[in-house]
């Protein structure tokens, strides 16, 4: 009897059922419903709509000619690249530096991780003040340095970079913590052996730390790329409605804009489908590129 309870799998399904039902109700049903909605004409959130579009794929055809979709996709790809290079890049750099100091490790870990715990909306408001045109912190500093004209940090052309800076800054700490944990898992014996062999600090990083961090970096890369697809709150707080001239839309902010501001719920649903497809495809691509190694 005692051994049989491990062979009987029925209780396992029983305990899995609540989570499964939860996922069905709150994830898969809305997802399927969202696909359905993208073919219907819906002007109000929550309403069933007034029938199917003519043609039923109108929203998807519209995406091909919608200049804002192009802008959103390009900006999202730029955001992904910036996330990969700067967020993960800076995180690696900081992790390696902190790993090489003997005192104050915990202090730096806390300092670098801190932005993560601040609400993105609060950060958006904070950076709004930093980049404010009149009396903004940055313009005041430049004024002290002798600049006579104010810079509009949210003007077309530089707005996208103004938007990316706080997003990148906020999440560096997240990857930093993952990477520093990865570094802690590398055996000290390897470094000691390398030291005996006469390896410099740079050589230890180049030939021990980075190769053994490979899998952790791959995980960070996948998280960074998929995370960039979902960025919403901070950009929307700083650049509502894709301001200026709809040049700062990301896929997430454009979907929200169409649904909540333009009352074009069906088109918002179609953009949501696009985001999911993009997320799945890009995750596959990134997984292929940053393939984990077996050691």
């Amino acid at each position: 009897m005692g051994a049989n309870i491990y062979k009987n799998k029925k209780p396992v399904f029983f305990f899995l059922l609540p989570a499964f039902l939860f996922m069905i109700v709150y994830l898969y049903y809305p997802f399927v419903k969202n696909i359905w909605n993208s073919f219907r004409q819906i002007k109000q959130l929550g309403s069933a709509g007034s029938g199917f579009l003519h043609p039923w794929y109108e929203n998807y055809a519209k995406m091909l000619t919608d200049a804002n979709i192009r802008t959103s996709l390009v900006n999202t790809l730029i955001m992904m690249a910036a996330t990969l290079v700067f967020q993960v890049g800076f995180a690696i750099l900081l992790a390696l530096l902190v790993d090489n100091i003997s005192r104050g490790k915990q202090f730096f870990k806390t300092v670098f991780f801190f932005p993560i715990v601040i609400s993105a909306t609060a950060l958006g408001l904070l950076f709004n003040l930093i980049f404010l045109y009149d009396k903004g912190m940055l313009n005041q500093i430049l004024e002290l340095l002798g600049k006579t004209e104010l810079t509009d940090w949210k003007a077309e052309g530089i707005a996208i970079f103004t938007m990316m800076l706080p997003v990148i800054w906020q999440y560096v700490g997240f990857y930093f913590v993952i990477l520093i944990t990865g570094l802690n898992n590398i055996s000290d014996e390897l470094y000691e052996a390398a030291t005996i062999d006469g390896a410099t600090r740079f050589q230890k990083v180049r030939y021990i730390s980075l190769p053994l961090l490979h899998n952790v970096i791959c995980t960070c890369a996948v998280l960074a790329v998929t995370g960039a697809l979902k960025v919403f709150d901070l950009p929307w707080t700083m650049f509502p409605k894709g301001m200026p001239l709809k040049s700062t839309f990301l896929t997430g902010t454009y979907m929200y804009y169409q649904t909540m501001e333009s009352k074009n719920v069906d088109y918002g649903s179609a953009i949501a489908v696009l985001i999911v497809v993009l997320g799945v495809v890009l995750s596959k691509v990134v997984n292929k590129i940053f393939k984990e190694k077996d050691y």
Partner: protein
Amino acid sequence: MKKGIALLLASAMTFALIGCGGAQAVQEPATEAAVEETVAETAEAPAAEEAPVASAEGVELNVTTTFAGEDGNAQNFKDAVNAWCEQTGNTVADTSATSDETFKTRVVTDFETGSEPDVLFFFNGADANSFIEAGKVVSIDDIRAEYPDYASNMNDELIADSLVDGKKYAVPVNGYWEAMFVNTEVLDAAGVAVPGANYSMDDFKADCQKIVDAGYTPIAAALGNIPHYWWEYAIFNNESPANHLEIPASADDEIGQAWVAGMNDIKELYELGYFPENTLSATDDETFAMFTEGKAAFLIDGSWKVGGIVAACQSDPEDPATLDTDKLSHFDVTYVPGQGSRKATDLIGGLSMGYYITTKAWEDPAKREAAVSFVSYMTSDEIVPKFAQHTASALKNAPAVDEAAFNPLQIKAMSMMSGVTSLTGAVQDLFMGDCRVPTFDGMPEIVTGKVDAKDAVQEGIDAYLAQ
């Protein structure tokens, strides 16, 4: 319609004139005493009148209004709710929020999903169409069938008819007007006089140039964020009060051409450099700060902005005792420059919002009585003047008010209102949803020439016709 507007205007002017009639009150001791009593009553927390309809005790009402955030009546609403709760023993779950597109979406979605409030203070134009069509609010006539005194203190002519079925649903409280605020400190520095009743667009452009030459920004407006007021008046300036509420069938018809001309007028002002340098990337808060900090001269906005300007003149925006009266004296409110058939004194305004009782509350025997009591209290002769202040109301008998109860900018607003020749509703309240997107959110593209004004107007009309 004309009769309604005439009545509204008469009501607004009567209210304003009464407000400006302090000198007369001083000459008549009996009247003065009555006025002082009224003011004393209004200065206290609104507990003056007993709830007109007895209600069942212990009912919790879900109430949603726009009296929240920076709304000038947010505190009045809290006080009135507390007084009503104390009086009736009921409680209110207040889910009020600042009025914007997200709020409107939230309210409409709540109705769609069956989670609407019991009492709602909301717009009476096209925004309300969906829940009126669905029969989710109760008409005033239906309520009066059971409660004959419901809103009996209101002038029915001034209560807006629904665009869906022509019935009246929302009991109004305070009206609104849209006019031009001026920073006189900037005008003085530029050698420009405060605009008067005969102010034209040509005068305005000449003044703007003087202001630019003096090193200031003429117009405080964020075209990339809130172009609404300029949109409305630019179109109005190419129409007249008689046809402003007509929606074009095409960008080529008479009204459509007026709309296109309006968009091009804004483009011209942008090209002349009269808007802030960052008007396309700034938020409304930023350009408003430019105005209050003496960097911009003109601000077209609504009557609710009086409270915002006064708050900007207080060291503690929450505490009226910290008001810097000298700073406030640098602000005035006047007419919007006129053009063609529209005189400067023809303003946008009216009674665009009111209290609805939802069908859900009406069909709940306990809540029905409480909801009627709540709305009756909030729209009583004692409470409405507190909310209406310098704007219009629909009261049959607007009580006398004393200038002493108002701050200097409110008094200037009353004076301005006394010279208004017509109040016309905002056509944007009839032109809702995605049809506004090409010319509202698309304003930066229009003024920078990336999109032709005619194409943008036509795109909006197409969306409107498809609704």
